[in-house]
């Protein structure tokens, strides 16, 4: 029954999204108050039906209704409760329904918040309605989660053991909050173009909370994904410039550019057209990311079984959404006011440089990710692009960005004193020097690039601290930029040290044998067989030694899951917060001897801690926004935006 209820709810939601699209766009006209009320009602109804459909699917998983195909594929009665729920989005169909659920949340939020006035809200709802309708058609025609098995199997196949992990379970919802959040800023941008003229000027202020939520979610989602790869995969790395990873990085790069450019638009009326274009581009990257991951056109270390026929539908969807928005942009953008003037030495210029660097970085990732696809389509030649390609562009671009970053928040709008700003930031050079000297003393071998990167991180964190100190006594939101920027510095510390100073050992060891890796001495005590609730495992015991004394015991493991006979390697990680030791159990060499691989990654936890700090910066800004209804004070009198 629940399956049919779910399917029916999706059909109702489709009907309501079409109503929302029509009424919403009609409601953009001043006189059409009735249309606006209908759009609002349709948005709320759409939300309710999507929640019902999603609830029906969750319920089917909870009661292990194996007559539903995807439940039988990804769940078993034995599966722990948490993984019965997270299995909902472990497959294509369920994850698309999760996408709709997030979209419904954002739609309801747009309707309820009513930011930017009734006409802008209405037009934004109209655009959301169009997007929702397109995605619902995609779900209903190519990937319905409610397909039945007849007869129903007695037991399900079970969730891929690799996904029975909290990190992997939370990763998709996080990313989707980011991807779909960019659909909200896209909807506001398109709405501004529909309205045109003076009515649309406050769109970037209206959309800002959505951009912030999307950006924070993307930041956390990417960090979570890379953390998961780091502790799950049997290599030392955390980022492989893999197409699936790039698919999530591209929207992040544009969203970051958008956050900065929208600030200039909102505060000063600068870069109006550019900000609109970025909002369109950001959502395009979300769609392209989804296409890359869902269509199965790419080979990736993260690939799951996927269905290429769906790729075509998503491509059509991308073409309609992006093409439509760009056509709208070409048609209406000239009607918008030109950007406000600013002097070369000003915060506007700083934001412009930020945008140029981020967009170039995006171009690099985009080219490297899609070039193999294009070549395959044109010549049938299968290639991949090596990680050095990305590194050779990305590292200099980001180093340059980070060198300039402390200046941005210290420069005034319209016109600024660059020399005075440089003097203010001078102590950050001291921080850079301290960081470099510390690295010089602690690190061996002394590798110049690593020490240089640490110095840049010191400069960025120091510069952010100066910015924060100068704002003492201000509202919490005023510290957002300083904290977010410092977060990137913290990540850089971790990235630089793990990349440059990681040590690894790969050995075959027998019981009682010792090995050393980095500063650690380890003793292999052998492997025992263990029985888990739904797996059998080979569990190694490895002692961490200090002289002859055992200071800690670690247990890397190999598991064979009962359902499907899938294998899983469970790494053991011991962290001091400043240094990670990771052990991976390899294969059985007979006579109690096993392959063992060990990685020591200095400062590795800072990579993900930094991302959290960045998201915290975003959160401060968001809460400042939601609390303060009044517009922020504007430093320069000329060309100020009309207040809400």
């Amino acid at each position, binding site marked *: 029954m629940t399956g049919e209820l779910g399917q029916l709810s999706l059909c109702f939601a489709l009907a309501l999204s079409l109503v929302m699209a029509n009424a919403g766009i009609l409601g953009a006209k001043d006189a059409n108050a009735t249309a606006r009320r209908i759009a609002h009602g349709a948005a709320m109804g759409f939300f309710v039906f999507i929640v019902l459909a999603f609830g029906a699917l969750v319920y089917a998983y909870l009661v292990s209704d194996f007559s539903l195909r995807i439940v039988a594929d990804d769940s078993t009665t034995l599966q722990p409760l948490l993984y019965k729920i997270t299995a909902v989005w472990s497959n294509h169909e369920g994850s698309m329904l999760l996408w709709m659920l997030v979209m419904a949340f954002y739609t309801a939020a747009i309707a309820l918040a009513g930011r930017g006035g009734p006409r802008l809200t209405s037009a934004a709802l109209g655009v959301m309605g169009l997007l929702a309708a397109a995605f619902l058609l995609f779900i209903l025609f190519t990937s319905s989660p409610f397909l039945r098995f007849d007869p129903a199997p007695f037991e399900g196949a079970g969730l891929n053991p690799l996904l029975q992990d909290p990190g992997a379970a939370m990763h998709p919802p996080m990313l989707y909050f980011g991807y779909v959040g960019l659909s909200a800023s896209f909807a506001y941008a398109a709405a501004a173009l529909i309205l045109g003229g003076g009515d649309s000027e406050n769109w970037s202020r209206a959309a800002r909370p959505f951009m912030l939520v999307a950006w924070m979610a993307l930041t956390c989602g990417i960090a979570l994904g890379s953390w998961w790869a780091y502790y799950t995969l049997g*290599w030392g790395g955390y980022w492989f410039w893999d197409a699936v990873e790039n698919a999530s990085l591209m929207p992040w790069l544009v969203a970051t550019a958008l956050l900065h450019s929208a600030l200039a638009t909102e505060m000063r009326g600068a870069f109006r057209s550019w900000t609109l274009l970025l909002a369109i581009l950001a959502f395009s990257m979300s769609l392209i990311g989804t296409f890359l991951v869902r269509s199965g056109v790419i080979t990736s270390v993260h690939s799951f079984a996927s269905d290429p026929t769906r790729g075509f539908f998503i491509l059509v969807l991308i073409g309609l959404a992006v093409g439509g928005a760009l056509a709208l942009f070409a048609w209406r953008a000239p009607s918008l006011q030109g950007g406000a003037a600013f002097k070369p030495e000003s915060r506007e210029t700083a934001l412009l440089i930020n945008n140029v660097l981020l967009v170039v970085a995006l171009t690099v990732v985009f080219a490297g990710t899609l070039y193999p696809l294009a070549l395959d389509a044109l010549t049938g030649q299968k290639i991949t692009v090596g990680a050095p390609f990305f590194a050779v562009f990305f590292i200099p671009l980001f180093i340059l960005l980070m060198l300039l970053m402390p200046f941005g928040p210290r420069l005034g709008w319209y016109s600024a004193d660059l020399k005075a700003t440089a003097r203010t930031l001078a102590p950050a050079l001291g921080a850079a020097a301290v960081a470099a000297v510390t690295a010089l003393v602690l690190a061996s071998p002394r590798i110049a690039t690593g020490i240089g990167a640490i110095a840049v991180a010191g400069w960025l964190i120091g510069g952010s601290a100066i910015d924060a100190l100068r704002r003492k006594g201000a509202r919490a939101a005023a510290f957002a930029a300083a904290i977010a920027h410092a977060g990137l510095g913290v990540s850089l510390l971790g990235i630089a040290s793990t990349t440059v100073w990681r040590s690894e050992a790969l050995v075959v060891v027998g019981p009682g044998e010792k090995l050393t890796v980095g500063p650690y001495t380890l003793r292999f005590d052998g492997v025992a067989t263990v029985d888990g609730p739904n797996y059998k495992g080979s569990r190694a015991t490895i002692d961490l030694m200090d002289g002859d004394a055992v200071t800690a015991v670690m247990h890397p493991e190999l598991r064979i899951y009962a359902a499907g006979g899938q294998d899983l390697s469970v790494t053991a990680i011991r962290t001091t917060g400043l240094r990670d030791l990771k052990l991976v159990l390899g294969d059985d060499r007979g006579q109690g001897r096993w392959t063992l691989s060990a990685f020591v990654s200095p400062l590795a936890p800072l990579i993900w801690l930094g991302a959290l700090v960045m998201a915290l910066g975003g959160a401060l800004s968001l809460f400042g926004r939601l609390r303060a209804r009044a517009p922020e004070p504007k430093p320069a009198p000329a060309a100020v935006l009309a207040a809400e």
Partner: protein
Amino acid sequence: MSPKKRRRLYFAAAIVLASGGAAWLILGALKDNVIFFRSPTEVTALHVQPGVTFRIGGLVADHSVSHGSGAEIRFTVTDKRVTVPVVYRGVLPALFREGQGVVATGALDDAGTFQATDIMAKHDEKYMPPEVVQALKKSGEWQKGGGQ
């Protein structure tokens, strides 16, 4: 021309120049970093030179996995016509098995053995790397659900 228009023109010109330069650099670097995919048949047919990094894909031949000295692992990759010996030092992905699809990155040594630097991990039992499917199709050995 008004100052505003002139500024816009300069701006547009700067953007065109910068993006042109960037595109030139990016395409140049792309060419240097392309890693080709070769099926075992192609490896012998194209006489791939030793030392050239490429990816090889196919099935891990049955009964071919053996342990070398130290942590070394030897196996052969086959598209059921040609087999190529592979050596890898490291921990294999958990889903690595004889008779299953595999994709490895590395280069041939002078003896014609593929020295793998990494072996593609699969996340999913059902997943077959698309290149492996293609390699098997080329050699005419592909059947739906084959190799599982």
